[in-house]
């Protein structure tokens, strides 16, 4: 494949572009996940967000997730683009597109991808509120590690 399926970008993400990366004649089902900046998290009002990434490692980890999906669901194709930098409410932070001949796999592989992103991809979110800011994740209060810690297989 000439075009990379896994990207970290600084500009707005085109859902269509990510979708086109997985579209093909053999695929009857495409699932797309769009993660947007939402206004309220645990009752607290977010004004804006900043995402920071360890770019080169993030791309490597996205590729690793792609390999994991290829092993688990050989018929699925996956493309992921994550945006970093300053984002406003309703802006798109991440788009995951999965195509597959059959739909159940497209849903499963897509949800697997977002779960893994939240575990092993070195990207961090800083929330800006009216009364302050905080890097999310590195405080016990907001840590969200489904399996305790990032996998160490990567």
């Amino acid at each position, binding site marked *: 494949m000439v075009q990379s399926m896994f990207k970290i970008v600084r500009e707005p993400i085109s859902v269509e572009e990510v979708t086109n990366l997985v579209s093909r004649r053999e695929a009857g089902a495409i699932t797309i996940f769009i*993660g947007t900046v939402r206004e309220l998290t645990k009752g607290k009002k977010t004004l804006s967000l900043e*995402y*920071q*990434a*360890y770019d*080169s*490692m*993030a791309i*490597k980890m996205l590729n690793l997730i792609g390999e994991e999906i290829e092993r688990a669901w050989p018929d699925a194709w996956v493309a992921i683009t*994550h945006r970093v930098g300053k984002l406003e409410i309703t802006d798109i*932070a*991440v788009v995951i597109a999965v195509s597959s001949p059959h739909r159940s796999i497209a849903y499963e592989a897509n949800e697997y991808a*977002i779960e893994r*992103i*939240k*575990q*092993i*991809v*070195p*990207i*961090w*979110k*800083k929330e800006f509120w009216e009364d302050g800011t905080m*890097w*999310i*994740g*590195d405080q016990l209060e*907001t*840590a*969200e*590690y489904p399996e305790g*810690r*990032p*996998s*160490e*297989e*990567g």
Partner: protein
Amino acid sequence: MITVLFFAGIREVIGLDRIIIKKDRITVLQLKQYFESKYPLLSFEPFMTAINESFVTDEAMIKDQDTVAFIPPVSGG
């Protein structure tokens, strides 16, 4: 010589995104202890660590020219 990368909150506290130090043949744990002695108010132990963009454990050995990154709990997606 090794390069050490900081991200997110720890980057803001230290005020640097990277430090180049003259150390090698030490373990990740020893590097964490070195930084804890340098920044006594900070705790490096809980951090995940990557060497050359792969996650490693505290026992991993750091070699000359390696890039070590302290990875706070991620919050992308």
